[in-house]
């Protein structure tokens, strides 16, 4: 079976475009499985966040899937086209990656040095 992932790719300063990738799958595989397939076989530059690999423990792989906010690791691949886009209300970093860390855990917000 094949899913076609239509991925909105955009980085700051560059125009957005939609790229389509065909991904072979067996029933039950996740959108995250599909994204990892693309990275290893088609386009190593595709940017998306994940840490725990399908355990839904890290909660990093949240994105827009078919216009709904969802985790890539718990959403199943299906035949035909699926659209993926970064979270709309978060600052875009690149492709499907947005700034999701709490503000006080971002490098841009921490002081260069402290003494106690």
């Amino acid at each position, binding site marked *: 079976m094949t899913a076609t992932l239509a991925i909105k790719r955009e980085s700051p300063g560059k125009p957005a475009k939609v790229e389509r990738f065909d991904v072979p799958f067996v029933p039950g595989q996740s959108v995250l499985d599909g994204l990892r397939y693309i990275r*290893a076989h088609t386009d190593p530059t595709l940017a998306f966040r994940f840490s725990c690999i399908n*355990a839904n423990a890290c909660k*990093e792989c949240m994105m827009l899937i078919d216009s709904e906010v969802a985790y890539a690791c718990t959403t199943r691949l299906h035949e035909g086209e699926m659209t993926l886009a970064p979270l709309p209300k978060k600052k875009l970093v690149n492709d499907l990656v947005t700034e*999701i860390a709490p503000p006080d855990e971002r490098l*841009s917000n*921490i002081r*260069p040095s*402290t003494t106690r």
Partner: protein
Amino acid sequence: MLRKSLPLRSSLCETEPMIELETDVLVVGSGGAGMYAAIEAAKHGASVILADRSLIGRGGATVMAMMTVAAAIGAQTPDSWENHFADTLAAGHGLCDESLAAILCEDGPKRILEMDSWKVGWAREDGHIKQAHAPGHDRPRCVYVDFLSTGPAVSKTLRHQLQGASGVRRVGDLMIVDIAVADRVACGATAIHLPTGEAVTLKAKSVVIATGGLTRLYRRNSASLNMSGDGYALALRAGAQLIDMEFVQFFPIGHLAPRLVGMDPIMWDPFRYKLGGVLLNGEMQEFEQRYVAEDSRNDGRYVLTRDLATYAIMKEVEAGRGSPAGGAYLSFQHVPETELRRAFGPVIDTLAQNGIDLKERPVEVAPIAHYHMGGIKVDTRFESAVLNLFACGEAVGGANGSNRLSGNAITEALVFGARAGQSAAEAARQSNRQRASEKAFAPALDLLARRRPSNGINPAEAIVELQALMMDKVGPFRTQEKLDSAIADIAQLTHAIGNDPFAAGVPFDSELVDWLDLRNMTQVAMSVTLAAHARQESRGSHQREDFPGLDPAWEFNQMIDYRDSRIALSRLPVQTARRRASVPA
């Protein structure tokens, strides 16, 4: 190519934007061990930066743990840390660093009770903390959080404590490239800020490596993306030693099929504890008893120990009696539905979402890389051979010998984390100045400055290849022939990726991250393979088909050093210490 967007201090380097940070203690990795280290270091007066390549307290292994935590708190039945110690040593088959194992067992109750006071929510029964009887333990000793929520609860509790800790700055999306060393003393680290691609230098009086294990080296693993053995490679290149690298623990009944998402693949173990569960081969025949009869290593309670169950499943598959996906069936069809629901509550619904109905049909399971016993060699202050470079959690080697007792992983994360944090704060207090100069950061900054487009190799694909060769040739059952072949393959891969990082030059540069991971993974894979190749016996998790059985002549640890860009092996007598842990805490 790179964006300079952060309002931080100016750069040393003219060609690349750079950010400089400074702290007393730098903790690398924010799983259970790293978070505990940060909390304790701050409590002991140090300023701390807690850095993680993912989000703080979300990546790593702790958050994925579903099972139990061993500590002799004596809530269920009378117990003492010495009993836990004896079980830990027995599981380790003669190779445990007994000083570290003693600290693990003696400090365990203190940390478990501290977590309880922080409201982690250990499961209770009749007014006391409930302790389960896990395999290898002489009595009920293992605490947990229902339902299969131990890891997430531990992580959440520590994240909450960190938010209230003064003096800790938490920084996510920061990947450490190398430890900075001056005159054989650790003095910080060089990192890359993933969202911008900027180089970051971190000056620190002491450094704690808390990056977890290496199970991502294997095709089938229960790891997160972060478990590439980063810390082992960082320590090796900094001049520290690794110990027991040949001992990778495979978990026999990792989920195989149907595709299960939203759960840790090692989730079936608690199901077996609570409900029983029958292993069947492809012919729907029970087979465990045949292997039990052939081998005296089974513990008589849980039928087969982890290593023997792994062996039994692989041998059934080899004999053409595997399940369709290449493992064994695990059946709970004999368990009444009400019983399933009572024991696992909402987990049954998650399974239903995956199309799994345990009353209808069995699932398929197979061995999966789960934990690494080896790691950075440390003393009882958790300091490595490099001064002011500490380690904790799974990144430390030695405490568990050749096989880890179930339930000891989270305990060691909390206990070693706290100890390493205290030691690092003490080391920082004794260093009256920052030692780091431009020179200490120069090699890693130079590496990052050499970023260039790929030479045609896809680093993500190369990682998949490495995982396949490690699984097939350096997996649970090893032979000289397979290990020879793996050494050649890893050397070839190391050569292929070269010395200059691949990069696409975009924010959150996945090619660069994959290349940096490969740099670490190839060094760590070679360390595991060389140590496995040298050890001509079978002990604990290291099983050689060409050298079956434990050989008393091999009762010593193997050490790894990195000298002149080569990985070198040496031997060390086992550290025995049959006395109380000597370091006050």
